[in-house]
């Protein structure tokens, strides 16, 4: 993950995470990217290069393609914003890895 963005995420969580209300929703296009982002926001930067190296934020992380996320979103808006990518991306592989890291 971009080092500057890691810094922004860290600062936002420090400011906003009172009562553990912060969650992450990803829009990664493949399994590898979804894995890296999930790891970074849950357990810290796996490459040990950025501000989140060794920082375990422990945030609940989801992917926008997960059915349990989709069912809470207005179906018309979901179709408009995500519909096309839902058809072309490998939804099963992406959502499986995110769920595994979230629950791991």
């Amino acid at each position: 993950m971009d080092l500057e963005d890691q810094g922004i995420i860290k600062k936002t969580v420090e400011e906003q995470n009172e009562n553990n209300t912060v969650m992450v929703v990803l829009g990664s296009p493949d399994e590898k990217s979804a894995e890296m982002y999930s790891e970074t926001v849950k357990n810290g930067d796996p490459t040990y290069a950025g501000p989140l190296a060794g920082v375990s934020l422990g945030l609940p992380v989801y992917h926008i393609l997960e059915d349990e996320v989709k069912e809470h979103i207005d179906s018309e808006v979901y179709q408009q914003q995500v519909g096309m990518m839902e058809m072309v991306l490998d939804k099963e592989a992406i959502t499986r890895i995110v769920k595994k890291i979230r629950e791991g």
Partner: protein
Amino acid sequence: MFEGKRILCIGERDGIPGSAIAECIKTAGGEPVLQLTQCFV
């Protein structure tokens, strides 16, 4: 699930952008507090 939650929307240019995730989350009662769209070019 998202009601009363603050959401970091971390999208990607080749996938679903942060702004699209935020639009969705708003309809589920969540508050997008950060929108990022990663780009690897």
